[in-house]
């Protein structure tokens, strides 16, 4: 199962994968795995149009003009994006 986790979601991917494994044990999904894609947080400045990735510090200011009138482009994802279904895997 392919999962996207944005940088601004307070989710620990390893813990999520571990819990998934525990939940799936002894079910038809035993052996299935989470594939986590981490999505960095990025913002776009409404003043100068520049796109900035947040990096390690949660400062929501434009990397170009330092303006704070910004919109969030990514980073809040918590999605299932795709399933890889294995033929005959449950038999």
């Amino acid at each position: 199962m392919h999962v996207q986790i944005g940088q601004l979601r307070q989710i620990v991917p390893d813990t999520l994968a571990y819990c998934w494994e525990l939940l799936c044990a002894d079910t038809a999904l035993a052996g299935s795995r989470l594939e986590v894609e981490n999505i960095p947080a990025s913002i776009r400045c409404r003043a100068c149009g520049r796109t900035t990735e947040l990096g390690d510090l949660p400062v929501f200011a434009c990397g170009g003009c330092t303006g704070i009138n910004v919109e969030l482009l990514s980073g809040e994802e918590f999605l299932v994006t795709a399933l890889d279904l294995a033929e005959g895997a449950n038999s």
Partner: protein
Amino acid sequence: MGRFHRHDGTTHSHDDDHIGHSHDDDHADVGDHSGYGTGTERVEVLERIFAENDRTAAANRADFAGRGICAVNLMSSPGAGKTELLRQTLRRLSGPRIGIIEGDIETSLDADRLTGFGASIALVNTGHGFGGECHLDAPMVRSALPRLPLDDLDMVLIENVGNLVCPAEFDVGEHARAMVYSITEGEEKPLKYPVMFRSCDLVVVNKMDLLPYLGFDLDLFLANLRAVNPAATVIQASARTGDGVEAWCQWLRGQIQTHAPAVGTGSTATD
């Protein structure tokens, strides 16, 4: 989709793939599809993992709106002063009829502190024994609604479980989010818990009466808050002395006017 089948009697065996896998291996080989090299099909989906919670939150919000109720989700760390602020609020905020949903891991201590002020209170204990959920989610709030006289309320204040992490993730059907931050917590908290501070429309900076005794740098805190959430309204207050509580009450009245404009403000439903 044609090649995917399950429980259909096919007798393929893939026993070699994952039996005996250890957790250590799993963390190390994320991205390795070797076990699925043949016979797999990718199905694209785009499903929000919190969709179920968010559907219930939308139902809560619709139920509030349908009765002319403004709902505010009040969050903070443990001990920041949510309950004392609510106590002072109930003493001072005359006019709007208030219901409270009190989320606590255990005990009715907070709910007990809020009784006797004329507000209806529905307690949601999230725990069994000592310990429990660290946040309220939309279904928990929904379970409390039948215990409030919604037809006779103008505002529901939802006191979340004290925690700066998980409550920020869960929409419970509120119209606005407020946070109580106390100056004993340190100036850096907005940078350590940006999701919480960013999610709020208002931050009450509480325990300001302790400022003379603490080495608290208010300007640094406000700069950190602005870095994370430039738009948040800030009210400096002391729930203990009452300073700033009137400004908070004024903000609440404004929320009612914005989200439930026909009630609690003296205006009529035909406005």
